């Protein structure tokens, strides 16, 4: 009987069907892919059993690309074409990148995001990241034996909109359907929280290869609620290597090292840093291309001294996050350590001292983010029964605003607002007969626009001529669950409306991405048409499956005629899937989506009512 058919919106009507979903930790130094197998999150290894994929891409003259360990060996031999730590350049301009002077790349400053000139041509950081994602995708598909439904890709919590958008674009280039961009500390909290069945307020201290995040989360009854997040999107293990590298140059009196030697010494610096976790000193031996021999010993005290300022740079954001959460260190029940750089004893000491407790290190700091992402991917793909799912409530890390008179920012959405969120602000014209108005969208905490990140500039035209101050222009900011912003503006007065929607751009336009996609497909000898067709077929099949599951669960919300209409649309789309016209399939997808709008609204209403009654039952029990 329909009344007894209890079905959560997240519950698939065909529970036996397991969708292949993975979590991907796209790291500065290493990347990983994980999945949930028989209810347990596991990292997927490569064919020789290695779980980490070094985030290194080497472009070769013969147009081939090496990724991971294959590229790692070439760092000092072919530094210009071997890209390490590309994550640091994602959504970043040349002036935003630190230590650019010791980087061996041939940078090309482009509007919004930096590019790299390689032997295989000019590459954007998005394309470099896509190469890493492609390897992880094929690793997952080989290991799981099928095409992926989708992936959760993790990003530093402190990534701004441009960096998030760049990550999503990289996934698109790699042919991955992104179920969600998930903040790395939140992913770690899932892996930790569910393992330990914890309740209370926790801090996640995540120091990776190139980024630092601190998140304060409240865990209660299966809800992970981020109270505040802060960080430094350009601080990580790489900076510790950089300090050691400078010390080597100084101590060994090396001036103007070649790019090969720079890479060689940076590698030695990293080895020494890693050795000092567990040893009191580390030898540094290297032979330079000039014939000069480097023979030094780095003592742990010297290392601690030279990196003291880096560690103190983590404490400022930590204090701010606590203050934004309205808490003090005494409220924190546990501190979770994430990221390879938290292995350093002086980092652990500083964290223990600040929080007045020993941090939790019982999960592998390199894997915990990927494992949490895999668990979330499993939920988002609809593989679990809705009732026992956990819920994530995350926040936006940096305020979003608009430029006002005099180059000042006006905040529209403050940092640490729970997402999704929308805010509208009204503006008016300041000249008689003004028909256009321009907007500049920025992200950051500083008062001056020049100190914030510029996300987009756009103009609203077609405002009907009126006296100054009479027009009402409403600008709406919407941040979705991925933390991505879209902005629209609309003139509200007397019947005339004009509206525009902008996607914040950081230099890669949709056309550019389409071009890169085309190039990468042609490159591997694929047929663009065939790929387009396959993509639309997959998308259509996904939609048909989702709508059928909805009909099975909540078909009683429809009148017979309405149901027949939807079923007709499904049948029509099915026919198109079997054909070979990708445009026809796309049209069919749009048409089925439109046909299910009312149904979707009724299902949502039902869910809202269920939440209310559920709440009353809880009250009743108490």
């Amino acid at each position, binding site marked *: 009987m329909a009344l007894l058919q209890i079905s*959560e*919106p*997240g519950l*698939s009507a065909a529970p036996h069907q397991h*969708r292949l979903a993975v979590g991907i930790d796209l790291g500065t130094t290493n990347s990983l892919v994980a999945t949930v197998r028989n209810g347990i999150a596991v990292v997927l290894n490569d064919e020789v059993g290695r779980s980490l994929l070094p985030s290194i891409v080497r472009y070769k003259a013969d147009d081939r690309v090496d990724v991971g360990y294959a590229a790692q060996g070439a760092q000092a031999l072919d530094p210009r074409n071997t890209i390490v730590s590309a994550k640091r350049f994602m959504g970043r301009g040349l002036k935003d990148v630190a230590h650019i002077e010791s980087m061996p790349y041939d940078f090309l400053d482009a509007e919004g995001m930096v590019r790299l000139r390689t032997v295989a041509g000019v590459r954007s950081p998005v394309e470099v990241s896509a190469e890493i994602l492609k390897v992880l995708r094929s690793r997952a598909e080989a290991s799981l034996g099928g095409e992926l*439904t*989708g992936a959760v890709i993790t990003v530093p919590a402190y990534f701004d909109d441009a960096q998030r958008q760049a990550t999503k674009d990289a996934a698109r280039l790699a042919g991955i359907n992104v*179920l*969600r961009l998930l903040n790395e500390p939140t992913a770690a909290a899932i892996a930790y929280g569910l393992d330990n069945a914890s309740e209370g307020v926790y801090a996640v201290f995540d120091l990776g290869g190139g980024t630092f995040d601190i998140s304060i989360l409240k865990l*209660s*009854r299966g*809800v992970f609620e981020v109270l505040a997040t802060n960080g430094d999107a350009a601080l990580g293990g790489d900076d510790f290597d950089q300090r050691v590298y400078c010390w080597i140059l100084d101590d060994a009196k090396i001036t103007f090292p070649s790019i090969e030697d720079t890479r060689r010494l940076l590698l030695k610096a990293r080895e020494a840093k890693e050795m000092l976790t567990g040893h009191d000193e580390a030898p540094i031996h290297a032979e330079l291309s000039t014939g000069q021999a480097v023979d030094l010993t780095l003592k742990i005290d010297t290392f601690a001294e030279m990196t003291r300022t880096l560690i103190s740079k983590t404490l*400022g954001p930590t*204090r*701010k996050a606590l*203050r934004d959460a309205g808490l003090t260190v005494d409220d924190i029940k546990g501190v979770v350590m994430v990221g390879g750089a938290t292995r350093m004893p002086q980092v652990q000491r500083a964290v223990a001292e600040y929080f007045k407790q020993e941090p939790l290190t019982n999960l592998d700091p390199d894997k915990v983010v990927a494992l949490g992402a895999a668990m*979330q991917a499993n*939920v*988002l*793909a*609809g593989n679990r029964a*809705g009732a026992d*799912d956990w*819920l*994530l*409530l995350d926040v936006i890390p940096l305020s979003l605003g608009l430029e006002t008179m005099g180059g000042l920012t006006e905040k529209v959405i403050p940092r640490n*607002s*729970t*997402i*999704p*969120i*929308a805010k509208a602000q009204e503006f008016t014209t300041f000249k008689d007969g003004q028909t256009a108005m321009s907007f500049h969208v920025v992200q950051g905490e500083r008062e001056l626009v020049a100190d914030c990140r510029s996300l987009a500039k756009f103009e609203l035209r077609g405002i009907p001529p009126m006296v100054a101050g009479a027009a009402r222009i409403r600008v709406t900011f*919407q941040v*979705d*669950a991925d933390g991505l912003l879209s902005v629209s503006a609309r003139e509200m007065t007397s019947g005339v409306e004009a509206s525009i929607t902008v996607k914040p751009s950081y230099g890669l336009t949709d056309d550019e991405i389409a071009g890169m996609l085309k190039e990468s497909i042609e490159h591997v000898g694929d047929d663009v048409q065939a790929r387009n067709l396959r993509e639309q077929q997959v998308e259509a099949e*996904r*939609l048909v499956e*989702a*709508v059928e*599951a*909805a009909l099975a669960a909540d078909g009683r919300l429809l009148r017979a005629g309405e149901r027949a209409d939807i079923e007709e649309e499904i049948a029509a789309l099915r026919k198109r899937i079997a054909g070979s016209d990708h445009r026809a399939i796309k049209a069919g997808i749009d048409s*089925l*989506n*439109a046909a*299910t*709008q009312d149904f*979707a*609204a009724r*299902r*949502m209403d039902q*869910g*809202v009512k*269920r*939440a*209310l009654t*559920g*709440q*009353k039952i*809880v*009250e009743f029990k108490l």
Partner: protein
Amino acid sequence: MVPDFRQDYFSLFGLPRAYRVDAGKLDRAYHAMQGQVHPDRHAHLAESERRLSMQWATQVNEAYRTLKTPLLRAHYLLRLAGAETDHESNTAMPPAFLMEQMEWREAVAEARAAGDHHELEKLMQRLKRHGDGLRAEIERDLDANKDYPAAADALRRLMFIEKLEHEIEDALEALES
């Protein structure tokens, strides 16, 4: 299509329409509601459902923030009662209050200039106590006495106090970095 909120935020969460809110109940109702409408619950569904889910989750977040924050909650209740504060234009305050405000502001500016962390914290504590008093007043005015003009007046003062608190927070932050 924007979700239709036929109910006010209080009924949305199944709570009585009052300034005094059971925080635990509000949290539980909020979590239960997001458990139904949040985009993570609809990620594998049709695009129409995903879009609707984002709109609903956005509204539920806004509703929660409004009821959770005393200042916003008071504003909201006054709006529901048809007694809006018109806080943008109505800045006429009693001279004694404005005088007091100026003294506060000077104290904050002095402590900031002197880099006196301790003094700023002390000022913050005093302001918080002051704010607590005003919030209690607002509660009495709204829930017991239904005296909306009095509530609106106390609310305007509370806005000044909270603005000062933010200034102290900014000063403290500036001192730390």
